[in-house]
């Protein structure tokens, strides 16, 4: 069970208070009507499933209700950092550098 630091509450809390909400940094296209079906399909359904560093959106559901990002190693489950929505991760996978 994860021990997660909420960047809004500024405290470590148990995983039970949080929900995972999928991959981070999936921006809604600014002009959806201009998207092709393929582009819209990519936005809706296609997600990375990396082995190693991954950026995930979580919400402090039973706490402050704020969404924030977690950089997590999907192999070791180590949480490398947490950062607020709108911020950029400081830890990224090697191939992404």
């Amino acid at each position, binding site marked *: *069970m994860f*021990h997660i630091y909420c960047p809004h509450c500024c405290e470590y809390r148990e995983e039970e208070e949080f929900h995972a909400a999928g991959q981070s940094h999936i*921006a809604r296209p600014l002009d959806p*009507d201009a998207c092709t079906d393929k582009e819209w399909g990519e936005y809706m359904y296609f997600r990375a499933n990396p082995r190693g560093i991954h950026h995930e959106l979580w919400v402090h559901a039973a706490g402050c209700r704020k*969404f924030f990002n977690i950089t997590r190693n999907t192999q070791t489950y180590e949480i490398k950092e947490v950062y607020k929505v709108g911020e950029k991760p400081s830890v990224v996978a090697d191939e992404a550098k």
Partner: protein
Amino acid sequence: MTQDLSKQSNRLQEGGRIDRSKPLTFTYNGKQYKGFDGDTLASALLANGVDIIGRSFKYSRPRGIVAAGAEEPNAIMQIGSTEATQIPNVRATQQSLYAGLVASSTNGWPNVEMDLMGLVGKIGGKMMPPGFYYKTFMYPKSMWETYESYIRKAAGLGRAPKENDPDIYDKMNQHCDLLIVGAGPAGLMAALTAARSGARVIIADEQSEFGGSLLSSKEMLNGKPAAEWVKDVVQELSGFDDVLMLPNSQVNGYHDHNFLTIQQHCTDQFADRAPNGQIAQRLHRVRAKWVVLATGAHERPLVYGNNDVPGCMVANAVSTYINRYGVAPGKDLVLMTSNDNAYRAALDWHDAGRNVVAIVDSRKNPQGTFVDAARDRGISIIVGSGVIEAHGSKRVSGVSIAPLNDAGDAVVGPIIKMAADTVATSGGWSPVIHLSCHTGARPVWNDEILGFTPGATYQKQLTAGAINGAFSTAQALSEGVKVASDALSQLGLAKSDVALPETEVVEEGKAMALFHIPHTKPTSKAPKQFVDYQNDVTAAGIELACREGFESIEHVKRYTAMGFGTDQGKLGNINGMAIAAKMLNQTIPQTGTTIFRPNYTPVTFGAIAGRDCGELFDPERYTAMHAWHVEHGAKFEDVGQWKRAWYYPKGNETMQQALDRECLATRKSVGILDASTLGKIDIQGKDAREFLGRVYTNAWAKLPVGKCRYGLMCGEDGMVFDDGVTSCLAENHFLMTTTSGGAARVLSWLEIYHQTEWPELEVYFNSVTDHWSTMTISGPNSRKLLEKLTDYDVSKENMAFMDWKPMTVAGVPARVFRISFTGELSFEINVQANYGLHVWKALFEHGEEFNLTPYGTETMHILRAEKGFIIAGQDTDGSVHPFDLGMSWAVSMQKPFSFIGKRGMQREDCVRENRKQLVGLKTIDPKAVLPEGAQGVLDPKAPVPMPMVGHVTSSYWSANLNRSVAMGFVKGGLNKMGERVFYPLADGRVIEAEICSPVFLDPKGERQNV
């Protein structure tokens, strides 16, 4: 000694940590025995000379106790004196003896002494190779259930109680600086160091007493018996407020981020049932800043012919039974070893006054302190040899000993036979690395100690003592201090001085890498050489698996079942890997290791469930009027966590009679529904209106204050996921309602879009579901009823359909919404929840003259279905967009912002012809009620499988219309009005229906516009 030990034939006259003044009577397999306080069930059985404690999994061979701790593979017991207190899969070696304990073997039929299955094993030995179950029981598939029950009975898996467990189980959350697992020399020393330095410490040990290996040996610390040092340390530790000591507590799981679970046996170690009010078991959920694993090591038995005959044991277990429990489990011992350490078993046996027949050492020239001690006692040592086979069936009667070559893989000389009743063996020690593996760390092979040690981890974890291969007490003690010091410095705590106790100087010669003792015959023809006792995996089986092409140890494991079940390979895994490695002509590290997973030993469901059972299993949500519903005989249904009134039967009414009455009364006069469970979200901010326009499919820009509007909410895929009415309370203030079950999801949906996509919008959301009681009065007399409770003008002129007004109702401030889910004139009265019951009762006081009738969710469903109103989640399933529902009127494609769902519902598949569309279904036989879920076909005579065109989503008997009403999906249904669709049912009937508008009643809406 004056006690009557006559029945305890193997009990020594003195010694052990048992209390001989407290004899205890217990029952095993229906027979009574005596033991002493301080015994385990295993030591008491051995004291009584009970050799056979079970039958083996596959071959049904008689089995005896092999070990003295958690690694025991055979003595798996069913414990419990009553049906309700049954506990399966308890290791006899871990169960403290108590007065009145009732235990039985979990396998063996009709009993362990005379086992009919054994015949199958004897005859079937050759017929049951590895993969036997896969090969034999695969086909025909339909027979599997028959095979399974037979296999389960034969396999001797324990059984769950058939009655409710009367005991209380508990959970506790703990936090600490340092969690120390294991209270042997390393763990105790680490705890002492950390405690003296002011750290918050939890130290847990599976045994009933702290001390670990020190309790089973004759070692001296500071010139005194080691047990005295243990006593002093335990006493000092118990004086610290911040030290929690947990004996009888198994750390079973090491989870992410230093979260560990500890199963503490509170009363089940001394009673069948917890004394009144006490907790039987407690699960500690620990979040530790640092973890010290001081879990020690398990001695590895050697693999030789018939090594499972009762009387074959692990060397260290022999010492433990003698030193700790005062039990010598036999008369004549043969010890086989590849190392010096195991000599202690023979020394203890000899010193207990029993006969050591011989020590058989695989090494040519053993030298060291213990070897010398054996020679001094005149014990015969046969060097360069091995026990290739044990003799006997229900108990060892003798052994065959033969000289081995230097590599230990071939017999090179004549066999000597010797009589003996006990064979103790040692192939060295395997560190207990299980917990370190739970978080994914791969163990690392260490050639020096011939075992795996914990691999690298990112957890804040330290290891000390035998788990690292530091097998001597001196090493364990100093590693204990070291890891505590490391943790303290990481925690920023200053370390206090701790003196290491003086240990005896012991010199040990080099051990030999030996796992599998060769026989004169090839392995496949030799007497069975067991690697994994619990799963009946033999050396020949592993060799066969390798010959059949299994190269990965993970596959060999799955094929042979090695390390499966409750055993988790504690004794056998390394021997198995060594045999596979040799077959594959590679090293053990090249062969790899399997990963151990939680839990280390079986955990009871009671401990896992804790108090989360019965009424506390899941919270139940009640409305403010719940007590009234109960009082008036309501039947309830679960909607999410809510208990909602379903219907209110009167007298002997059937459900249908009650529904008919409720439906007729509502449309004829007035009915009332408790709608408090509807999700309510308060939305405020200057951009609230803009936000609504983005999340709903219809327009919100011009909704004036005081008005309500129905809206559909879709996902980005364009599919409907919730609906509800939202009202404009003030220019920047709205109240959104959602389905009862969808409230939390909708709030989260609004939040994620606001926080991650449109943070620039100034808008705030708050759940106010529980703040309001909502009661809907519906029917032609609802206005007259409301007028009796308010001075406000609720006439059509002042309060039109889809208006809401603030007013006083029954003396209480209320928001009243003129919205309708029944198609009748309706008023939805919202008051502060605390006033809910008051207003509800006031309505009934004044409602008598109108025959005010309470109705529940079922009548609500019928009334709305008569009007063709959908229920999101019943008439939608995540695959239908508003156009499929015939609700294009609720979608505004002209809105400037591309609302959620707009792009999705224009995808190729969403705009194709012949999509399933929601239509009304009018059965040709008006009395026939379609079952919900029934699949429609256009041609009932078509060959099976018939092409299906869609299913029925809502279907009811309508008392108002005196016929059935239904809605469902039909491919291209909106263009098929008047056409027929058929519903072939499982019972052979075919119901024919006409496709029609879903609005069965009052299509012009005249009833609500009054």
